[in-house]
C-alpha cells in the first residue's frame, strides 16, 4: 500500500520553496532520521533545479512534475520535465570529480547518487525526462 502526493510547479526558482515544504512534511511523516531527511531534501531540490534549469530552460509555461510515493519501506520521488534530456548513461559512467575545486557546476548528480539509495534516469516516450530517487526506511534504523 502506498500513498502518492503530486506537485506541479512552473519552472521558476521561487517555487522550489513549495516543493521543499511538501518534501519536509512527507519526510517527517514517514519518520526518516535527521541525516537521511537532509539527504532526501537536498536531492529532491537538486533534481527539481536540474529539471527547471536544464530540462525546461526556466520557461514558466513549462511545469515540473514531482510525485512523492510513500511506500511502507521507502520513499520514491519522481521528478519530470519537458526537456530534451541528456546522455545520462554516458554521464553516469564519467561523473565529474566533485572535488575539482575549479568547477562551479557538475556536482548535483554526484550528490544525488551519493545521498540516495537509488537514482534512475529515464527518457519519457512523449518527450521529457524523468528522474527517480529512492530512499529506504530500513537503512535508517526505522
Amino acid at each position, binding site marked *: 500500500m502506498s500513498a502518492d502526493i503530486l506537485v506541479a510547479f512552473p519552472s521558476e*526558482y521561487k517555487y522550489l520553496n513549495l516543493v521543499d515544504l511538501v518534501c519536509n512534511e512527507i519526510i517527517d511523516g514517514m519518520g526518516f532520521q535527521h541525516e537521511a531527511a537532509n539527504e532526501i531534501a537536498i536531492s529532491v531540490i537538486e533534481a527539481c533545479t536540474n529539471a527547471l*534549469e536544464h530540462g525546461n530552460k526556466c520557461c514558466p509555461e513549462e511545469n515540473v512534475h514531482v510525485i512523492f510515493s510513500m511506500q511502507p519501506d521507502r520513499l520514491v520521488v519522481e521528478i519530470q520535465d519537458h526537456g530534451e534530456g541528456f546522455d545520462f548513461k554516458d554521464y553516469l559512467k564519467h561523473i565529474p570529480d*566533485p*572535488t575539482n575545486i*575549479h568547477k*562551479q*557546476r557538475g*556536482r*548535483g548528480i*554526484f550528490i544525488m547518487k551519493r545521498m540516495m539509495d537509488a537514482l534512475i534516469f529515464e527518457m519519457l516516450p512523449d518527450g521529457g525526462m524523468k528522474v527517480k530517487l529512492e530512499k529506504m526506511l530500513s537503512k535508517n534504523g526505522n
Partner: protein
Amino acid sequence: MILDLHGKLMGGPDADNIRDLLHGIIDGGSKKIIVNLGGVNWINSTGVGILMTGYTTMRRNGGDLKLLNVSDRLQSILYVTKLNLIFECFDDEAEAVESFFRE
C-alpha cells in the same frame, strides 16, 4: 571583511553578482573574507559552486575565504563532495576573525 549573504544561493544571476562582489572587495584591498551564510535559507550544489569560485578567486589573489554559520544541509553537501576539506567553517564570528590572525 565579513560578507553577509541573505536569501537563496542557487545559481542564475547569483553567480555573477557574487563574483563581481568579490572582485570589488579584492580591488578595494581586502583579501581576507568571511562569508556569513546565516541569512541564506537556500543553497544547492550550484550555490556551493559559487562559493568555490569565490574561494578560488580569493586564493589566486593571495587571499582566503572562510565560511560562517553553515547550515546542516550545506554541511551535508560539503561533506559528500569532500569540500569540507577545502573550506574552513565556523559557528562563531569572533573565532572566524581570530583564525586569520593565527595564520
